[in-house]
């Protein structure tokens, strides 16, 4: 009789354990899901930032700014000095 009671208690405990484990698994899974979504979102953002960077750094834009805003120009002949390493 006491053995029966013990076995029943064990069975109940194990059943509760299964439920708890299942619940834990689902929680972890939804956490995984969230992180995966975030990864994807971050990847997308990275792509967009790269896009933005290359748009700002486009050679045409840089040249226009350098010429118009900063008043830069290519060095004229005779303004360049070439340095050579000592052999």
């Amino acid at each position: 009789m006491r053995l029966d009671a013990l076995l029943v208690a064990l069975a109940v405990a194990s059943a509760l354990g299964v439920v708890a484990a299942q619940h834990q698994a689902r929680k972890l899974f939804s956490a995984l899901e969230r992180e995966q979504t975030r990864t994807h979102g971050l990847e997308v953002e990275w792509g967009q930032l790269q896009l933005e960077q290359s748009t700002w750094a486009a050679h045409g834009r840089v040249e226009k700014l350098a010429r118009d805003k900063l008043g830069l120009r290519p060095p004229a002949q005779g303004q360049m000095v070439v340095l050579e390493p000592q052999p």
Partner: protein
Amino acid sequence: MKKQRTVTFNHNPLLKRELPAWRSRFVLMALLGCSAALAGRALYLQGIHNEFLQAKGESRYARVLEVPATRGRITDRYGDMLAVSTPVRSVWAIPGDAQLEPGDARQLAKLLEMNAVELDAKLAGGRDFVYLKRQLAPDVADRISALKLPGIHQQREYRRFYPGGEVMSHVLGFTSIEDRGQEGIELAFEKLLAGQPGSRRVIKDRRGQVVEDVESIRQPRDGQDVVLAMDGKVQYLAYSALREAMQTHRAKAGAVVVLDVRTGEVLALANAPTFNPNNRANLTGAQLRNRVFTDTFEPGSVMKPFIAGLALERGKFKATSTIDTSPGRMTIGGASIGDAHRHGVLTVAEIIQKSSNIGTVKMAQQFTPDEMWRLFDQLGFGSPLNMGFPGEAGGRLRPAKSWRPIEQATMSYGHGISVSLIQMARAYLAFARDGDLPSLSLTRVDAASVAGRRVFSPEVARELRTMLEMAAGPGGTAPKAQVPGYRVAGKTGTAHKLEGGRYANKYVSSFVGFAPVSNPRLVVAVMIDEPSAGQHYGGAVAAPVFARIVEGSLRALGVAPDAPLTPLQFARKPGDAAVVVAVEESM
């Protein structure tokens, strides 16, 4: 008192009859049998034959989700982005379900940037499915889904962006609205770039949230990134130099290609007219043409150095051998060929320098058509380069057996044969390198140098470099190709255009050259189609483009100068332009 008669119904004699015992047993058995049948069926369904019901149950909760994969990026050799896919959303509707309040409809129309009438017209059409707007920015799409309108749905898509805009458009090509490659690199590398969307089966609870990942049916595979050989700076230089020349000379079209001498990489490739791949409304065929690969032209005098190379290679001439080109005119099979100027007795080097047709023809006449055909074939003319680029042209090189003597003569100076600009640029690698020809690459090559197939011996290549440097120097046909600080070499070409089988009074001006001569790094080929602002000689139209590209590119690549930085000494005095005019090129 009358004695009442008592009636007891339960002593009804009718009821006194004993029921047969089997009847109650029968009912009991029947009930037992029923419940046994139920239990058996339940056992059967739950334990033995449970797949069907399990599948049915799962289908109420299980969903197959599409896992999107992104298309690979395209970068230049330094990793700068040239093409990126970024998610956008398309808004679609089931017109039957979309019964919108006027206020909602107005709000939706405003978010979609269309007027309400237009939206009504789209929803009124008797179709089951209609796209309201494709490729909408995600933040606008979020605001639309926040309206929670019935019958309005969204779909995730990707849109390709090209930050380089029109500078790179012909190399990269573009993708369709489904993000599939249509042109250029996007099409050539479609297999690598395209992602493979995956799918997985999940179980959702009644609120629609995923609670369990049942299985992954197919792993998504993101498209691979493609690293091109292109150099962003060189490309921009090539593009802006070409655009400027197009304006100055009011040309119909133009193309430039820059190759790395050591690896055969395509560093830059520009075309004009061009287009903006981010906005492809009103595109014309002329804008789309990638002339470097798909158009062939009669190259004209840029062909001459190869004949000189063959002559030196076979030992028929030396660089110092003299050929009499007077009187500047000769007749072959009834047709006459001439030089623009009388040059008299010239050395082989001077023939190249001054671009004499007669001299070149006299060299070519030392060879059989078959020998010349084999040279052209080795140089890659007449068949596509097979670089994987869509629409590569092979050019026209007829079999040697069908050549008439006059044709062999004209082919030696680049008429009666057609090539694409990339073929010509590659052929010049044979001079810039020590006589061998590597295969070209559109993608970055991670090697210091690449070996090729030998066409000329190193000695001949060296001699030709000297001749071509003379051609680009004072007394040559293209002094305007010169660059302060670097020794340059190259050959001009000015060819009449064939129109309806006859040579018209329209020209293709070209220049193909390399620099620095002491240790060549770049081959630059320039082609300007129909310059119409007065000048049409390759030395006046195409050579300055070459000079601009070489000057900027070599500095950007950090190549040490091999010539003094002081202005190169021209034969002429300042203000006296006579010398440049005097070396007008023949044909």
